C-alpha cells in the first residue's frame, strides 16, 4: 500500500497548481490522474486567456481569485519558462445598445478592482484593430487581459512539482474513498490503495462523482461544451488583441484572439450537454461561430482553419465556484464549479487551498531546498543561427527537423518524452512541442512521431496511443 499525506484527484491546471504549491512544504503528495497526461481534459480546450476578472460577479470567491491571480503571472511565467504575453483585450460596441451598456461594464470592473479598464473611441479602436467592423461605436480596453500557452502552463506546474518530489500517478482512476471516524482514510485507485490524511478533489468535470464517494455530492456538474476554430498563422485577417464581444444576459459570447504561437483562435459556443465525454464538434455550432464573430470582425477567414475542437467546461449546478471543507469529514477538500476562469485562477486557488489547510490545522514546514525554477524544452525555431549550430553540436537530433510546419526537431520531441512527467502519447508530444499542431496536422510528422515514441519508450508502434488507452495509432504490422 502507498502512504502519503495528501492525494490530489485530477492533474488539470488546478490540481497541478496545488501540487506545486504543496511541493514547497515537507509533505508527501500524490496526484492521481485518469488520463495519460497532465492537462489532458478541461485545461487543454479553452481560450488560453489569463483574465483580469473585470467581468466576474463582484464579491464572489471566483472574482477574488481571478483578480488576485492575474498579476501573479509575470513572475510565475518567468520562473517556469511559460510563453505568456500581456496583449490586452478590447470590447467593441457595434450597436447603439451595446454602446450604452459600456458604462455598466466599466463600473463592474471597478467593483472588481480592475481599475485600468479604459474607454476608447471608434478611431482609437480602429487604429488598434484595423480589421474591426467599421460600424464600431467605441469600446473598452482591458490592458492586462493576456494570452498564455495553456498546455505548457499545466506541464510546467506539474514538472516543477515533480522536481520538488510530488508523485504523479497517470492513467490511474480513483475508484473509491474510505473514510474513518469523521476523517479521510484511504483512496482506492486502479493502481492500488493509498493511505492518506488529505484528499483534494480537483477533478473538474468529475468532481461531483468524487464527492459522491464521500457522500458530499450536494451539487451536479453539467458539461458546457465550447467549440473553437484555430486558424492558420498565415490567415488573411488577423487581430492584435483579444477581441471580446459585449456580453448579453444569456452568454459571454464568442471571441477572436491571437494565440501565443501566432495562430488565431475563434469561439467558443456554449451548449449544456447531458454527458461528460462528448467532445464532438457540430456543423451547427461551428456555423454560429462564423455568424457571431463576423459581427465584430467581418473579414474573419474561417476557411483558413487548421483545426476545430471542443472543450467541456465543468459548470456547477447550483452555479458558482466553491471551496468546501467539512467538520464531519476532516481532510476532505472539495473544489467545484471551476469553469473557464480556472486556467487563470489555478495559481491563486492553489495558494488559497494551502492557506485554508494550514488554518485548519495542517502542520507544515517549508522545504529549504525547494527548486522554484523550471527550464522549458529548448525551442529550435526561436533560436538564433548560432544557438541552433551549438545545440546541434551538443545533440545532433536537434538537426533533424521532424515537424516541418512548426519546425520541430527530433531533439525537442525526445526531450518532451524523457523530461519529468514526460509525454507518452502523440497528443502529449503535440502539447509539449507542437509537433503536429501546424497546418498539415501531423500528416507528415505523425508517422515519424509514432516511430520516435516507440523507440524512446521501448514499446512497439502498435502500443503508441493518440492519447488515452484504446486510442491506438496503428493496428498491426502489414506483413
Amino acid at each position, binding site marked *: 500500500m502507498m502512504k502519503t499525506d495528501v492525494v490530489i484527484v485530477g492533474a488539470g491546471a488546478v490540481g497541478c497548481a496545488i501540487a506545486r504549491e504543496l511541493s514547497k512544504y515537507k509533505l508527501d503528495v500524490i496526484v492521481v490522474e485518469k488520463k495519460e497526461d497532465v492537462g489532458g481534459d478541461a485545461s487543454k480546450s479553452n481560450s488560453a486567456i489569463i483574465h483580469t476578472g473585470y467581468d466576474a460577479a463582484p464579491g464572489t470567491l471566483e472574482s477574488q481569485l481571478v483578480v488576485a491571480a492575474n498579476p501573479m503571472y509575470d513572475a510565475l511565467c518567468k520562473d517556469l519558462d511559460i510563453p505568456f504575453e500581456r496583449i490586452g483585450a478590447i470590447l467593441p460596441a457595434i450597436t447603439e445598445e451595446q454602446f450604452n451598456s459600456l458604462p455598466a461594464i466599466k463600473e463592474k470592473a471597478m467593483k472588481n478592482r480592475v481599475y485600468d479598464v479604459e474607454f476608447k473611441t471608434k478611431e482609437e479602436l480602429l487604429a488598434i484593430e484595423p480589421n474591426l467592423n467599421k460600424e464600431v461605436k467605441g469600446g473598452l480596453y482591458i490592458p492586462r487581459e493576456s494570452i498564455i500557452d495553456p498546455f505548457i502552463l499545466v506541464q510546467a506546474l506539474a514538472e516543477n512539482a515533480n522536481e520538488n518530489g510530488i508523485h504523479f500517478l497517470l492513467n490511474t482512476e480513483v475508484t473509491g474513498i474510505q473514510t474513518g471516524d469523521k476523517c479521510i482514510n484511504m483512496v482506492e485507485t486502479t493502481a492500488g490503495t493509498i493511505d492518506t490524511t488529505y484528499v483534494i478533489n480537483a477533478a473538474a468535470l468529475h468532481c461531483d462523482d468524487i464527492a459522491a464517494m464521500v457522500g458530499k455530492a450536494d451539487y451536479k456538474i453539467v458539461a458546457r461544451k465550447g467549440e473553437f476554430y*484555430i486558424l492558420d498563422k*498565415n490567415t488573411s485577417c488577423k487581430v492584435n488583441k483579444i477581441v471580446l464581444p459585449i456580453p448579453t444576459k444569456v452568454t459571454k459570447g464568442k471571441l477572436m484572439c491571437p494565440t501565443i504561437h501566432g495562430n488565431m483562435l475563434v469561439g467558443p459556443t456554449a451548449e449544456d450537454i447531458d454527458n461528460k*465525454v*462528448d*467532445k*464532438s*464538434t*457540430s*456543423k451547427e*455550432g*461551428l456555423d454560429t461561430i462564423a455568424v457571431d464573430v463576423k459581427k465584430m470582425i467581418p473579414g474573419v477567414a474561417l476557411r483558413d*482553419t*487548421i*483545426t*476545430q*475542437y471542443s472543450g467541456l467546461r465543468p459548470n456547477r449546478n447550483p452555479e458558482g465556484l466553491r471551496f468546501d471543507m467539512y467538520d464531519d469529514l476532516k481532510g476532505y477538500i472539495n473544489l467545484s464549479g471551476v469553469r473557464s476562469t480556472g486556467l487563470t485562477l489555478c495559481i491563486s486557488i492553489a495558494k488559497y487551498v494551502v492557506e485554508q489547510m494550514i488554518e485548519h490545522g495542517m502542520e507544515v514546514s517549508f522545504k529549504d531546498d525547494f527548486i522554484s525554477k523550471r527550464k522549458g524544452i529548448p525551442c529550435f525555431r526561436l533560436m538564433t*543561427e548560432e544557438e*541552433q*549550430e551549438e545545440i*546541434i*553540436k551538443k545533440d*545532433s*537530433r536537434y*538537426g*533533424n*527537423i521532424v515537424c*516541418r*510546419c512548426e*519546425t520541430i526537431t527530433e531533439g525537442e520531441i525526445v526531450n518532451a518524452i524523457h523530461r519529468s512527467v514526460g509525454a507518452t502519447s*502523440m497528443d502529449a508530444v503535440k502539447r509539449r512541442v507542437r509537433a503536429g499542431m501546424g*497546418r*498539415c*496536422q*501531423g*500528416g*507528415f510528422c*505523425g*508517422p515519424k512521431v*509514432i*516511430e520516435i515514441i516507440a523507440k524512446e519508450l521501448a514499446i512497439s*508502434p*502498435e502500443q503508441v*496511443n*493518440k*492519447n*488515452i*488507452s*484504446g*486510442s*491506438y*495509432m*496503428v*493496428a*498491426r*504490422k*502489414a*506483413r
Partner: protein
Amino acid sequence: MLEMKCDVAIIGGGPAGLSAAVAAKKEGADKVLIIERDNALGGILQQCIHPGFGLNYFKAELTGPEYAGKFAEEAKALGVECILNAMIINMLPVEKSAICVNEEHGVVNIKAGSIVLAMGCRERTRANIVIPGTRPAGVYTAGAAQRLINRQNEMVGEKIVILGSGDIGMIMARRMTLEGAKVVAVIEIMDYLAGLTRNRVQCLDDFGIPLKLSHTITKIVGNERVIGVYVAQVDNKKQPIKETEEYIDCDTVLLSVGLLPENELTKKAGIEVNPITNGPIVNQYMQTASEAVFACGNVVHVNDLVDNVTIESMKAGKYAAQYVMKTRVEAIREVSSITGDNVRYICPQKIVITKENEKVRLYFRVLTPEFNVVITVSSNGVEIAKKKAKRVNPGEIEFIEIDTVKVQGEEVTVSVNKQGGAGLCAKK
C-alpha cells in the same frame, strides 16, 4: 557556419528535383546540389509502390521507386551532389542563398547561382474541409497511411472508409484491401471522380469497392478510436440531405481530399504565389517572379501524372542552368495567360516573348467535366491556337501549344467550349 557553394541549388529530391538536377547538369551547370529532407532521394514516390508511373515518359509501366530510381541513378552518374536529412528553413532569393539544417553539418549556408524550388505538396486535412464530430485516433490522410504501410510496415486499421476519390485515396483502397483490410466505401462529394479514371477501374471496380458520388461524411464518431461515421447524400449546393444520412461502422477514416503545393518557404521569401494554384507564378522557363529562383513540379501546381512533372522540371533545371551560365535568349517582353471559359488555372501564368519563335505549351485544368470540346487560345481577339478534345475532366491536366510569334497583345486567353458553340460551360 558551414558554407556550401554551388551553381544550381535544388530544394527537394523528389521526382521534380531529380529531373531538374539531371537537366541542369546536361545543360552544362558545373555543380548541382540537391537538398533533401528525407533520408533518401525519390520524394513521395518512395511510398508509391504501385505501378502506373512512366507510361508517357518511358513508355513503360514502372512503380514509384523504379521511376524515381531511374532519375536518381542518372543524377548520380552525371555527378549531381546531394545532402540528405537536410531541411531548408530560410531562403534569400536576391542573395541566392538558403539556410539549411542537418544533423551532421549543423546549420549550413548554401550559396548558389540559381535556386530551383521542388518541395512538392502536402495533403489537405480533416480540418481544412471541416468534418464535424469527435477527434479520435484513426483519422489519417491517405498519404500518411500510405507512408505507414509502405515504408514503416504498419497497418492503420481494419475497416476503412475513404473520403475523397483522389488518386491516392483510390490507390490506398486497393492497397488496404490487398493487405487484408475491408474498405467499406469511397465517398466523394462531387458528382464526378476526382482522380484518374484508370484508377477507378483498377483500384475500385476490380475489387468491388463501392464508390458513392455526391456523398460526404457528416460526422466522425468515437472517443478513443474511430468507431464509425455518418454519411449522407449532398444536394446540388453540396449540403448534406439529412434524410439520407446513414451510419457506417469503421475503425479508420482515410482522407483523399486534395493536395496543396507546399510554399511556406516561397511565401516567406516574398515570392508571389497564385491564389488558385497556391504555387509561385512562373513563366514558360519555370522562372518565378524572383529571377534567380525557378520552380517545378507539385510546388507550382498539383500535377496528375509524374511524367508531366518530369517534363516541366527538366525545363526548370535547364533554364536555371542557363541563368547561371547567362546563355538564355534575351527577353523582349512578357505577357500573361488568362483563364477563359471553363478553365480553372493555366501554368505558366507568364509567357516571355523573345526575338525567336518558341513553341510554348500552356497546361491547364478545367472547372467542370465536358465532352466534345474545342480548346482555343486567343490573343488580342485573334485565335492563335485551337484543338479538339473528346473529353475534359478537372482531374486531368490538358495542354495546348502556342507559337510565341503569334502573340499580339498583353495577354493570351485559354477557353474550353462545347463543340459547335452551343452550351457554354460554367464560367469562372
